[in-house]
């Protein structure tokens, strides 16, 4: 087992959770609502995509559920550059 690799991915994941936010590419979005439906804390991700604004909700867990489930690749994680 690649222990080092495992720690690395874990580190990447934590980094994204700490520094990342969900950013929509609005022109890919057709407002189907899968993202909002699957958000565990009921953030209306779809509305963010309609307005073209990142999900800045402080409650966002950056769990990636919306990013993964979007059938059209609208959402991605982007670094917030908060600490740079």
């Amino acid at each position, binding site marked *: 087992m690649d222990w080092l690799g495992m720690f690395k*991915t*874990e580190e*990447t*994941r934590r*980094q*994204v*959770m700490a520094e*990342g936010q969900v950013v929509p*590419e*609005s*022109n*890919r*979005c*057709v*407002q*189907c*609502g*899968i993202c*909002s*439906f699957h958000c565990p804390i009921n953030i209306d991700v*779809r*509305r963010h995509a*309609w307005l073209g604004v990142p999900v800045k909700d402080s409650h966002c867990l950056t769990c*990636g559920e919306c*990013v*993964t*489930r979007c*059938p*059209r*690749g*609208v959402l*991605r*994680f*982007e*670094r917030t*550059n908060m600490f740079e």
Partner: protein
Amino acid sequence: MQYVILGSGPAGISASEAIRSLDSRGEITLITDDQDGYYSRPGLAYYLTGEIPEDGLYPFQAQDFKRLQIGMLKGKATRIQPEAHQVVLQSGQAIYYDRLLVAIGAQAVTIQNPGAELQGVFKLDTLENARQIVKMVRKGKAAVVIGGGITALEIAEGLRARGVRVHYFLRGDRYWANVLDEQESRIVEQRLKEDGVQLHFETDLVEILGKGGKVIGVRTAAGEVVKCDMVGVAVGIKPRKELAQDSGITVERGIVVDDRMGTSAPDVYAAGDVAEVRDRVTGRFTLRSLWTPARVQGTTAGMNMAGEKLHYTPGAPFNVTRLAGLTTTIIGEVGSQEVDKDVVGIVRGDSETWRQIPDALVCQAGFAANHLRLLVGEGTIVGGLVMGDQKLSQAVHYLVERQVDVTPIRDQLLRSKASPADILASFWQKITPTTKTQTPKAR
């Protein structure tokens, strides 16, 4: 000021938002003949597969309409009277407007074959259609699907996800021949087969067979009979131009609009699938049936209705869809000389511009699921198709849309043995050094 909007799709909704952003007092009346109002039509595909429940399909809630002060009215407009500035509804009611937007979209083309009226023959045009399909599926066991493009595939995949045995009939020898190249068609077909969809190539449905008013099978041109309980039809769509036509407004294949989305009648605008706009590349009037252009056209129309002077410039056509589970982005001219026999005119999620034959050379990368096709013109990339991994789609869109000079990598793209994806990625990084995108690896 009285604004009347006909149609509750993305064009009508974004026009209403645009009007409200400029005019906080004007009265906005949105009239729709869709009993379900504003919902995500492209989302119906995911409702069919069971990925989202019906009530998840509504992007706006009652409070959103309230916030925008939009008055909703269910009804069908049967006549526009430009001189009187009135819309007449089927109920006989006449509604005055200062500015009118026609954004009533397009509708599925029906087939005329014997048996087309039987119970069990369906289309996927509205939420109500989708509900009917879901209801039927409980009883049905086997289905025949005919048509090309995105909607036919969505029907096939949706039924398959609900355990129906699906026979997908294609008149030609491959899927979506006028947009996809052969390799791309084969990728989609292979995945459909793996999903359990039975593909019947060069198969033409001539008759739907029934018993007691219900579908029991179909007969093909070759004389073969395929037993089934339902038949899904998605052979194309047509703009709902009759209202404008009957009212003396200029129409061609759709309602003809100028670059401010104005029609031939004063104070009457059109936007979305029903409108026919001039394409910047070809100079020709072109039909598109895409969400984002509908939204942008709606916004432009709304701004102009409220007194702005905005011009609409159609960008490079761009659509994202999912073909047999693969996210696919189609940008600019991807060109094909083949005629798709499965489609009448245009399908949903379609742009005629894709079928302009580009003066360009093709370079390709990737196999199986991840696939990139670039149409390399004289000094620019004129079109592209990204299937599977979408990391490069933003880059391709940017390069096509802004007609970025790709001379530095043109020879490399066409002659080098290196993957076009790598060449493109490194070029993209050079011209946009600030882009930092992360995708979480662990899940």
